[in-house]
């Protein structure tokens, strides 16, 4: 069935380092991919998205890379800050799925001073 999974359940980094969070997806027909950040007690917050016709997209301190050949998605966070500590989810929207999101289990990012 459709699934979006993550390689690492927990990632610990030092403040100031770059972080890379990885995600594998199985539905090759997916059209749109999104990274969400979820802090404790809050709903998921949109970080960055990428369409299936793109390989890379950059935002402020974040970059998303999409490798359709191996069905892999990654989120790179530059100069990680304590405020980046949260659970990160990748999600996909199947083509024609009316924005239905399929989420993975999440990766917890812990930033240490």
């Amino acid at each position, binding site marked *: 069935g459709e699934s*979006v999974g993550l390689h690492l359940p927990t990632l610990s980094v030092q403040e100031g380092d770059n972080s890379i969070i990885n995600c594998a997806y199985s539905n090759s027909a997916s059209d*749109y991919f*999104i990274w*969400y950040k979820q802090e404790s*007690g*809050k*709903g*998921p*917050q*949109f970080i960055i*998205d990428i369409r299936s016709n793109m390989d890379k997209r950059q935002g402020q301190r974040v970059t998303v890379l999409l490798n359709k050949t191996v069905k892999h998605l990654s989120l790179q966070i530059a100069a990680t800050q304590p405020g980046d500590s949260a659970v990160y*989810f990748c*999600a996909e*929207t199947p083509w024609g*799925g*009316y*924005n*239905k*999101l*399929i*989420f*993975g*289990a*999440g990766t917890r990012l812990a930033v240490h001073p």
Partner: protein
Amino acid sequence: DAGVTQSPTHLIKTRGQQVTLRCSPKSGHDTVSWYQQALGQGPQFIFQYYEEEERQRGNFPDRFSGHQFPNYSSELNVNALLLGDSALYLCASSSPWAGYEQYFGPGTRLTVT
């Protein structure tokens, strides 16, 4: 401009009871999706409402039902509650005229005892 709001924040129910959760979408959004997030897992799509009709449904039993009102707000109803229904219920709003991005509310924490 208020974002997505949900009520109540927390709720405790007993097995077999029924519950109604409420969601008001972000201003300008006409589509509401509901997700269930069990502890330590990613959100799971329940269903989506558009133009007061259920447009798409995930793999949830008929005990889960919903409604969308003319002002685009929405309710999620769960009948015959089970212990396994304990979760964070998230509402997300979007609009086909505003791209793919979905905005999530803070969620309602439901505990079934």
